[in-house]
Structures are given as C-alpha cells and as structure tokens.
C-alpha cells in the first residue's frame, strides 16, 4: 500500500526492502510505538519512521541541557519532512501520492529564561509532564505482555503520596498497614477509612466474580443508583469526614479537579470511575515485591516507554521474518535496532493505492497517568484491524532471563 521506493531526486537515498507495508507509522511517541508493536504482533508488516533524531516524539524525555534547543526547534523551524515531501512529489507524481505529514506543535508558546544549572546532566525533562504508572496499570500489563519491560527500568515512587490538608502535608494512608501506622488520624477515622476500603474491595470482588444478580448490601455490591452518583457525594454518604474524603478523592482516585463544586459538571468523578481507580490503586499496592507504593516511574523518564515498545516491535519482526518486517529508521543515530545498511534516510513516503487512510495518533493529554492515551490507542487499533487482538498475551518474545513479574 505504501511504497517507500523513491524516484528522481531521491536517488541519494537507498531503498528499503521490502517496498510495501501494511502500515506505516510515523513518529515514535507512546501511542505510535504501541500501535506499531500491536500491528507487528498481529503479523502485519510495519514501517516505523521518525523524523527526529531521538525516540519518543512528544513523549520523549530530554536531558535538561538539550531542552532549550528542543523547544526552539519545535516551535520555530517547520518540519523538514513536509517541505521535502512536497518537492519530491512533483518529480514522481505519476505513480505516487505524496502525503504531507505535518506535525502538530506541542506548545503554542514557549518562553525560556535563565541558565541551565551546573548538574543539569542529571536531570531529564519528561515532555508529557508529571505522570505515574499504577503498578497494576494496563500500560504495565502491556509492557509485561509484550516483553517490553525488559527494556525499561522502573523505580518505585517512594514516600507514598502526600496530601496537603489544613496547611500541612500528610502522608496518605492508603492501605491497612498505612492506616494502622498513621499517627495523624483519629481512631474513628481509621475505622471509617478502612471500612470504606473493605466496602470497595467487596464490591470489586463481587462484581468481578460476575455476581450481579444479587443486589444490595448482602452481596457486598454498591448499588447501581449509587454508582452514578458523584463520587464525592457517595463518600459523604459513607460518613467519611472531609479529610478522609480528600484522601480518597485526590490522593487515591487521583482526581485533578476540585470535586467539591456545587454544579455538576463532566470533571466530577462518578462513583463508578472513582471505585475503578481505587480498585486499580489497591491492586497496584504489593503487586511487585520491590515496589513499595502503588506507583512506579520509569527510571530514566517516560521517554523509555515508547522505546520499549519500539524494541518489542523490532524484536518481533526479527523473530517472525516471513510475516512482519519492521524498520525503525533514524536520520542520525547509533541505535542498535536500526537495521544495518540503512543510514540517512529522509522520511519521505510515497503513498500508493486507494484503500489506505491516514489516521492521527492521540496527543499527550492533561491526565496524571496514561490510561486515556492507552484507551484511544487501543480504539485506533480496533478501528484499523477490527478482527485482530490487541497485543495478545502470548505475543511476548521469549527471553532467557524471564522474570517478567518484577519491576526491576
């Protein structure tokens, strides 16, 4: 469908063999990488290209000294690929359609000031902003499932979550153990909080066992009427005092908007969503023996995540040579996954055929985790290949040191 062989002025560039692919993915951001990996796992031939000399696109982690140059290039210079593509299309207009791939800029306005501090090398800036991964997150599952976890090192978010309440910071009591040890909670508050956890747990257990027939408290389920209530209202019904409500809402369910507004609006967390997040949170705690809290963070920034999926896609292709071929192409790089012999390829695509469509991947959102991004990526895949499974469980390539249930 897509033909990367170029004519005319593109003779300078070596051709890629094979010359036609099921999918061409441009950019190596997290959604693009996951998509490429999913397509490769589904046995599609994939061409994965990126105009940038680094992995991750808008999801990369940039060393602090390079931040300035990144920002200025991102905002000022137009994307080189689009201009080249336009010029080359005239030369081979007959057999190819040139697709203008214009990258959207992440920032509408950038202003930098001051100098970079001395030890700046030790800092990395995550372009997607501060985000955390729940240990039981789907993204983590995907990494484990795809074997991508072998390429990322994680660090447990230590010290737990803190809550700012009444002018002071408190550690969030988020487990039975933490509630027991907490020195700031009243005895009755401890009781109410743990009882609430138990209610949620029994609800999750009852709903996951498919026991939907029995309604009401007997089955440990929270009723349907309560599930559609705003979460904050539900918490109030559980007689939780304000401070405990804040703990649940902002530190565990990770609501990023003020939930105590009078008007109902879409930012208001429903009980169903709130409980879903708590379920995720509680299954996160203790999932990995070496992760203390519920959250983990890639040791060298979020830029590691897309790379992990890219590598998976590449490994997949090497393992299943007949069906899939994945190339990760970079303009200047010494990254090992780049197939030998391919250097300095300008990302120009001559788009051929009629059945193909151009879809765009999700941009980074404002959330504190990757759940929504992952959701839209999955949807994208399902729209493209409705009959294929998204990164099936047994798709992971075999590694000798298979310790896939550890977060190290």
């Amino acid at each position: 469908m897509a033909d990367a062989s170029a004519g005319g002025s593109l003779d300078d560039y070596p051709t890629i063999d094979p010359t036609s692919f099921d999918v061409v993915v441009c950019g190596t951001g997290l959604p693009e990488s996951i998509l490429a990996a999913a397509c490769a796992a589904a046995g599609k031939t994939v061409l994965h290209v990126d105009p940038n000399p680094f992995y991750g696109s808008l999801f990369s982690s940039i060393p602090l000294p390079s931040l300035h140059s990144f920002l200025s290039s991102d905002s000022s210079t137009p994307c080189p690929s689009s201009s080249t593509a336009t010029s080359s299309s005239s030369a081979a207009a007959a057999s190819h359609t040139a697709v203008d791939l214009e990258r959207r800029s992440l920032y509408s306005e950038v202003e930098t000031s001051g100098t970079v501090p001395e030890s700046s090398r030790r800092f990395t800036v995550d372009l997607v902003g501060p985000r955390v991964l729940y240990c039981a997150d789907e993204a983590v599952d995907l990494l484990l499932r795809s074997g991508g976890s072998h390429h990322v090192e994680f660090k447990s978010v230590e010290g737990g979550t803190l809550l700012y309440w009444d002018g002071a910071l408190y550690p969030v009591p988020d487990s039975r153990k933490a509630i027991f040890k907490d020195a700031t909670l009243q005895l009755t508050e401890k009781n109410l909080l743990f009882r609430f956890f138990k209610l949620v747990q029994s609800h999750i257990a009852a709903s996951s066992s498919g026991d939907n027939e029995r309604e009401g408290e007997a089955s440990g389920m929270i009723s349907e009427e309560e599930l559609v209530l705003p979460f904050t209202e539900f918490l109030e019904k559980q007689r939780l005092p304000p401070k405990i409500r804040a703990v649940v809402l902002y530190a565990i369910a990770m609501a990023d908007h003020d939930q105590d507004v009078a008007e109902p609006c879409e930012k208001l967390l429903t009980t169903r969503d709130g409980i879903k997040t708590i379920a995720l949170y509680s299954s996160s705690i203790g999932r990995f023996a070496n992760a203390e809290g519920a959250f983990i963070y890639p040791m060298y920034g979020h830029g590691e995540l897309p790379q992990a999926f890219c590598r998976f896609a590449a490994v997949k292709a090497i393992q299943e040579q007949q069906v899939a071929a994945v190339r990760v192409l970079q303009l200047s790089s010494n990254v090992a996954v780049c197939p030998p012999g391919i250097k300095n390829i300008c990302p120009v695509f001559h788009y051929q055929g009629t059945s193909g469509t151009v879809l765009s991947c999700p941009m980074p959102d404002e959330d504190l985790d990757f759940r929504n991004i992952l959701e839209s990526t999955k949807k994208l895949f399902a729209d493209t290949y409705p009959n294929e499974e998204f990164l099936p469980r047994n798709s992971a390539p075999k590694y000798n040191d298979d310790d896939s249930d550890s977060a190290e």
Partner: protein
Amino acid sequence: MHGQPRRPAKPEDDAAAAAKAAKLRDLQVQVLQNHHSRTYTEEALGLSFKLLEINPEAYTAWNYRKLALQHNLRELTDPEAIKSSVDDELRVVEIALRQNPKSYGAWYHRKWLLNQKLTPVDFKREFGLLDKLLKVDARNFHGWNYRRFLAKFMGVPEEEELKYTMDKICDNFSNYSAWHNRSILLSNLLTQQRKGFESKQKICSEEFELVTQALFTDPSDQSGWFYHLWLLAQTSSPENPQLISSWPCNGAKLSLSLVGKKDDLNTVSSSLKEGIVPIVLYFNEPVKGLSPSTVKLNSDLVIGNNIQWRPLSITDSGHSNCWATYLEITNKECSSSQQFSVEVSIPCSDDIVSRSGSHCNCPVHFMFTIELGNNDDKARNIDLFHDPISWNGSESVQSHGNPSSVPFDHLNITDALVQEESKWHLEALSEQIDLFRELPDENSKFAKLTLARLSLACAAIKSRGNSPIERKGYCEEALGFFSDLIYLDPSHKRYYEDERSSVQMDQLTCNMATFMEHCSDQVQSNLSPLNHVQLCRLALTRIGYPERLLWVQMLDLSHNNLRSVEGLEALQQLVCLNISNNQISGFTSLEPLTKIISLKVLDLSCNEIGAHSIDTARYICLSPFSHKVEPCDAFEECRKKNINVEEFWDAILFFKSVNLVQLDVKGNAVANKDTFRTVVMTLSPSLKFLDGTCVH
C-alpha cells in the same frame, strides 16, 4: 499462606500420589533397615535424606540421622571435618523445611544440632534464614518458637526482640505470633524491672494505645483482640493470688451437736458429719503449694499432725482456687459443753504460687471457735433422715429464721486488699470503655465482648472498693452486652450464657440485701436448721462465685438451665442439693459433687441424663473423670450383677463416690432403665429414699 481455599484433588493427582506413596514406602523400608543394622555409610545417609526431602515428618529418619551423626563424629577430630558434617546436617533441615515449613521433626532436629554445640553457631545465618521464613509466612509459630530459642541461645536482649515484634506488627498487625511473643517479652521485662520497664502502668498504657490502633483499623481481625485480652488481665486482676473467702469464716462459732437450735447469730451448726470439721480456703485464682508448713493451724483442740490440704478441683493440674482440709475432732469424751478455738494463719509465702508464678504476699489470719455439744446417747440414736427432705421452698423461705443469721461475708479479707493500683486500673479500664463505645462498628462481636469484659473488670474493682451502686451499673451493662452477643453470635451462645450466668450470680450474691431474699433457715424434722439458699428460675447455666456460698447447707438450683455444676465442690457444708429441671446431660458433669463429703440429699429429677447417646460433657469439661477410669471394686461388683459396665461406667463412678441418703432421678431418660436402678441400689447402701419411695 493463610486463607487460601483447598482445591479438590484431580483424578490425575491420584496417580501421582500413588507413585509418591510407593516411592516413600520403598525409602522408608530401606531407611528402617539401615537404622536397625546401624549402617551409617554415606549412601545410607543419602537415603534418609531422600526420605526426609519428600516427607519431613518421618521422625525415625531424623532420629536415625542423629545417631549417625553421633556415630560418625566419634571418628572425626579435625574441626573442619566436624564443621562440614554439621553444615550438611543443617542443610538437610533447610531442605526439609522447604518441603514443609511447619515440620515439628525438622525444627526439633535443628535445635538439637545447635544444642550439641559441636561448632560455633553462625547466628547471622540462622537469623537470616528465619527472616526469610517469616517473610513468606509471618505467622509461622514454629519460626517464632525457633526465634525465641535462638534469642535465648545467643543472649539477645529481650528489648531487641520486642522491637522485632513491633516491626512484624507494623508489617501486618494480623499476626497472633507477634502479639503473643510481645506479651511474653513484656511480662519478662516487667518482672525483671529492666531499664525503661519499671512502670507497668506506663507500659500498659502504651500497649493499649498501640493495640487500639489495630483494633480500630480493622475490628474484624481477631489477633489484636487477643492481645487486648492479655492487657486487660494485666490491668484488672491483682498481681498476686489472694485468699478471698474461707469456711469457717473469721469469728465463726461452730457447734458440733447433733440436735439443737442456734442460739447465737454467728453460730453455724455443723451437725452431720460428726467429728469432722472441714476448713475451706478459697483464692481468687488457682494456686498450689498449700501444706501444713504454708498454712499454720493453731488450736487447743487435739487435731492431730497429719493435716493435709487437698485441692478441691476436678482438674489434674495441681492448681486450684479452692483448698480444703478436714479436722477430725478426737477429744469427744467431755460431757459438758466446751469451746475450743482454731486459728488459721497464712504468712507471706513463696510456696503458695499461682499459675503465672506469683506468690501469695498478703498475710491472712483468722480464727473460729468450735463448741462441742453435750452428746448424750439419746441424741446419738436419732435417725437424722427419718423422713424425706422436702424442697417445698416457697413455704419455707420466710417461714423461719432471721435472715441476718446467715454468716455473710464474715471474712472481710477482701476489703483489706483494695490496692492502690486499683485507681489506675479503673482509670485505664474506663478509658478503654469510652474508647470502644466510639467504635463505629456497632455490631462487632469482639468489641461487645471486650466491652463486657471491661465492664466486669470495673465491677470487680468497684466491689473491692465497696461502691455497690457503680458496681451494679457495670454489671447491668455487661449483662446487656451478653444478651446482644447471644443474638449476634449464636454459634458461641453457650459461652455468652455462661458468662451471663456468672454475672447474674454476682448480682444476686454481692450485696446483703439482694442475697437475703434468697436465703433462709430451713427446718426439717430431726435436723438442726440448715442454711438454705434458693436460686431458682434464673436461667442460670453455670455456677458463679462459689466462694460466697461456702456456708450453704441446702441449695436449691432447680428450674435453671444448668449444664455443669462446677464450682459446687467448694461447698463443703452442703447437705441437700436440688438441681432438678436443669440441663445436666450426664454423670460426668456431676463429678464436682463427688468432692462434697457432706452431701446426703440430691434431686436430679427432670434433667437430660441418658437422653444423649454421646456424652459431650466428657469432651467439653476439663473433668478428668473419664480419664481416671481404672478397674475398681465397683465395676467388679456391678459385673457380678450382670450390669453392662460399659454403658453405666459414669453412673458407677459417680455413685461409688457419693454417699446419698435420698436421691431423685425421675424425669431423666436413664431413670427408665431397670439396670440403672440396680446400679444405684448396689452402690448406695445408705440410700433410703429413691424417687420418693423408701427403699431401705
């Protein structure tokens, strides 16, 4: 490790199990052979290792390895070689423990090895292994036992171990072993008065604070409540055993005449067992060590030198709340009335010790007098039980006697024992009560039970401090909690009923005014008036506070729900007992009555004796009645009369040990059997009335 459901075995497991069994049998035979032939070669040892690897419970294999090690070490002198064989042995234990971390044999083998002191113990390694083990299962009590062993072996300060329990509790407070070890360590530290552990009050307050954190976080977790129970015991009961009651009481005047009337308010007639005066001492907790050297008796009577103190308990532990001795009055030849005094004194003694090892540190002294009556021959020939005793209580309660004549609480020992620490105890307990009232789980059975126990502890302190009204309040609250619990937690209904009965008995007997309503003198023909107590239709399921009934001679407990009569053994004055219309289910539950030497009249009618094919009391009661069955004359005698001894063994044991004059058993399933009648008649030669008819 805990709370994991057991999966049903699959058919393919059966084949595997059969193969394993065959292999095990094979190994077992070989190991036993080597054991018998004393073959201790490397190959033979390898076989025993293989066996233990699969089945660490093979005790003989462990024993064999011990012998082999001792045998092989005899030839070794090189310390390196010794060390390597000890290390091998340690490794075998580790591998066995991997198979079953709760293998008694394997743990014992390791302790044995260390105790041999063949090589210096690598404590770091041992503790490291333990840490690993307790990480996998923090509640493995074998691990905790071994830790205590190691700590003692190495001399780890108990303060350090206390910190360790704290760490484990912080990890997960649902850990019985950790709480338990904590209670042991704290007890030791407090007894030794180690630095930082001088004040029991301070430590207990801190521990209450700690455990309530756990209790409030998850009231449904039992482990914390158990620890709380231990703390409650530390806070409510006096540290040392105390004498709380006696018979005769201080200042009592006994008259040993066969017939006669009371002429003095404090006179108690002890007319029936001529010449024998029991002395009963009742302590607040089970003690042992009473003997003529710890209890001094002084009297101008000739009482003989072979005084023996016997525990009036049906358990075999040697500890008992209640102790008795029997004075045989030998100087009877006097013709006129004479008074003799008897002094009893218990000095501070290290020999009278409680189960926890604390000793009696409160000296007691009391005195009573015995009046020897004018025993003329005429009186001697009177048949005391010419007519059956009637239990027509309603008539007799007020018919005779001056209520104040009942010797009530003459032994004012308790008052003297109000300790200074009671005040703190009461404060701590009240604080706990207030706290648990705030617990939002209204229906937590643990919370309710704890509240009930706390209230009772307060009531007990109040009774020592003589504040009857406050005391009554606490008791009533406790009664309320028990009623709730019976409804809330029906599977433990009987326990709550027993507790409730005990409180009810306390309520009835704790103060003069209420007790008097149930007391009277009963006059029966030919007998001197008997001290009579009537506690009928109160739904009692067990006897509480027997120490307040020591003087009772006639006790009516009919129309209750009694399932046990434990406690009545202390009533050494008891002549007539009515426990008709109760729920006594067998003679095993009547064993305490065999300790009452004065018992003559027993009404057992309308109980459940013989109604149940299985005598559950035999398993539930602590009574070793059933464990003491040994060939005796009574069995032989019954066999001669063609009585099925197996069927009536409990009845035989009971009737051979009591000496009744009047018995009622009608309304029990057992009474319908003719053989049973034969048993009774055979073993009770003195019986005159059986079920209302004269038999002798």
